[in-house]
């Protein structure tokens, strides 16, 4: 009798697991016909609208979303809006802080999602792998096509410079494989209230910066702190400072890993200024041993005047203690001359569509939809941040806090230009971790264990390896 029960139980378990498999297959085998949208909402007219009298085709869109500091409210809302405005469309969303680990086995098994929101520099390395493997779908046609409102070409709506950068066109051939998500300035965060109270001016030049450091010392504060064990945050200081000292040309040589692009007097002058922060006691004591939240807390408690960071710091540190009246503000990096252009490094998160997507046309439609004013406003409303569209800041204005709106105002200052990271994609045989090679030595430099010259030499050695790998790969 017992054996009978066992047999029944095992059969049930087997059937359930088979049902699970078949369900998966069903999801994977959704038809790949082009999207057919119906009248949608009243205010927005999708471009490829069809006659509503035609029978509506049921379609599924599988999207995989990285859940970062902005939470999941926006994605839930925008998916709902997309489904409401596209009759017959069902969006299956997987959203997780470890989305890469979830989708990697699916992609390997030939069951890639239709749409991915994850970054090329993410810890999981999935997008980087897909770039190396040529596994992303070219989406230039989406940007060459009309925007969702049908008022113009989508590429004209996107913030200047982004689509041409390696963040979106990773192979250097102007073909777009990654779409920009949100963008924002990164710079020196300071407490505006404190500066106003003390009558301090935001420094324009490196000399002003260090002079301010002396005043800060007199008031028992350090001039500067950064995210200690994560020195990569100092990209927000290094790249703008090099662009200022040597122009965009100096930067573009570095982005191509050219010989002598890092070990030269222009770059060294910047590295020496950074070394001076540590050597001359301008760095908050203990910074090198702190993580990002610890150093950010210390800054907000008034231990240091500045910290490098982006606009997300306000929401990231929403629950952190702070000195009375603390108000977020952002300054551009110091320059070498008073009339020099100040550069601001833009952050840029990305969307992409895998080549193996089952429903690429619907994914493209979803992507187009994401840049609509409704979606941009929803994002600002739910996440307090701004899409990488030219009108993003104004569309989002009513939903942004004053501090964040003002931080975006850094672009309005005279002589301020934005730059985007534009490193050439490494050949697939290359084992160099570029960001580690450039930023890891900073802690040693700040500790006085390494000089600026040694730092430049070590980066040059890494660039030489990359050039050798490129040559070996026949590029």
């Amino acid at each position: 009798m017992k054996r009978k029960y066992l047999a029944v139980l095992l059969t049930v378990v087997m059937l359930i697991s088979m049902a699970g498999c078949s369900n998966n297959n069903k999801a994977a085998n959704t038809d790949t016909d082009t999207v057919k949208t119906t009248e949608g909402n009243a205010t927005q007219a999708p471009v490829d609208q069809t006659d509503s009298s035609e029978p509506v085709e049921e379609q599924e869109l599988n999207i995989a979303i990285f859940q970062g500091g902005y939470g999941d409210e926006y994605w839930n809302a925008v998916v709902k809006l997309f489904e409401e405005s596209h009759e017959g469309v069902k969006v299956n969303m997987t959203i997780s802080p470890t989305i890469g680990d979830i989708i990697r086995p699916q992609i390997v098994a030939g069951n890639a999602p239709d749409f991915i929101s994850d970054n090329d520099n993410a810890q999981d390395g999935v997008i980087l792998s897909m770039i190396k493997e040529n596994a992303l779908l070219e989406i230039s046609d989406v940007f060459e096509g009309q925007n969702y409102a049908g008022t113009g070409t989508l590429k004209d709506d996107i913030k200047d410079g982004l689509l041409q950068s390696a963040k979106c066109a990773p192979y250097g051939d102007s073909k777009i494989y990654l779409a920009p998500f949100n963008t924002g300035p990164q710079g020196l965060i300071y407490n505006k209230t404190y500066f106003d109270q003390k009558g301090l001016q935001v420094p324009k030049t490196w000399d002003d910066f260090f002079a301010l450091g002396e005043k800060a010392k007199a008031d028992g504060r350090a001039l500067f702190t950064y995210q200690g064990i994560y020195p990569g945050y100092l990209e927000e200081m290094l790249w703008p400072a090099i662009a200022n000292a040597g122009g965009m040309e100096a930067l573009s040589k570095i982005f191509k890993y050219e010989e002598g692009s890092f070990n030269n007097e222009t770059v060294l002058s910047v590295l020496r200024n950074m070394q001076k922060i540590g050597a001359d006691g301008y760095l908050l004591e203990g910074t090198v041993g702190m993580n990002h939240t610890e150093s950010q807390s210390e800054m907000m408690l008034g231990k240091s005047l500045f910290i490098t960071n982006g606009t997300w710091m306000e929401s990231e540190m929403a629950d952190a203690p702070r000195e009375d009246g603390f108000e977020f503000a952002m300054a551009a990096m110091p320059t070498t001359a008073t009339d020099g252009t100040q550069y601001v490094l833009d952050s840029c998160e990305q969307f992409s569509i895998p080549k193996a997507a089952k429903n690429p046309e619907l994914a493209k439609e979803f992507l187009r939809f994401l840049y609509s004013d409704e979606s941009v406003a929803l994002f600002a409303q739910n996440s307090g941040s701004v899409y990488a569209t030219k009108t993003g800041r104004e569309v989002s204005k009513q939903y942004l806090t004053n501090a964040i709106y003002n931080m975006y105002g850094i672009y309005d200052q005279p002589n301020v230009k934005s730059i985007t990271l534009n490193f050439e994609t490494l050949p697939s045989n290359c084992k160099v971790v570029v960001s580690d090679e450039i930023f890891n030595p900073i802690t040693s430099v700040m500790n006085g264990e390494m000089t600026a010259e040694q730092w430049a030499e070590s980066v040059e050695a890494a660039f030489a390896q990359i050039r050798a790998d490129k040559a070996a790969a026949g590029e």
Partner: protein
Amino acid sequence: MNKNPKLFIAVCTLPAVILTIIFMIIPMFNAIYLSFTDSTALSVGTNSKFVFLDNYKYMFRDKYFLQALANTLKLLLVVPPITIFFSLLSASILTQSRLREKAFYRTVYFFPSIISLTLVGIIWSFVFNPTKGILNHLLELVGLENLKHAWLGESKTALACIGVALVWQAAGYYMVMHIAGIDGISRDVYEAAEIDGATAAQKLMRITMPMLKNTIGITYVLSLSGTINLSFTLSNVMTAGGPNGASSVLLQYMYQQGMNNANFGYAMAIAMFTLFMAVIISAISRKLTMGNE
């Protein structure tokens, strides 16, 4: 069933054998194969190129790999002996003394080994925090301000901090094993030694350690493999391998190359090297501890 016990045993062990083959043996051979390819984390061998020994050759020119290897060896040299020493000492005290709170201490010492390793890393990050950490505050309290450090941010101290956390985490676990071993030693031996006037230290050195030689040998090998495995999490959480690679370890570098940098083939080569190294070191330590048998 009585007629054919061998068949019964074979059937019983079959599920475990199948699971081991599917989840251990096949992936291991897969990893060996991948270590000879330029696979990314995505292709996993399907359309990757066979590069033969290139990954292994590159490894020994890669300064970050060599640094991680040196750091791992330093930890292997120092952490297991200290862990075993403290675990033996506490096991000996808890079994030999007449403390009434024995059970309490046993639980407290064992506790670190059952909490999440990530949590252990976070706890010790707080201890070593340069401004809020208890260590710097204690030093200040006893007037040793000059010994204060940014412990996790200085290349001279970062690796040692990870070592301390490793010892703290593991000592209690091995203590329980040693207590079980000591319980197996006849009380008569200790009583006879006491009558002869042996001190606690003498009992530990002359009775406990020789009689526990086998157990210590096993715990030492376990501690070696634990150090290789667990240092990955602690290094990731506490220092992110920094400053400038001063506390990076082999598995962390493997993970970084495999996952963050999409060099799965190279990562597998590092994994194979680590496995090979662990087997050799374990074999040597087993040989040394079991030398007389």
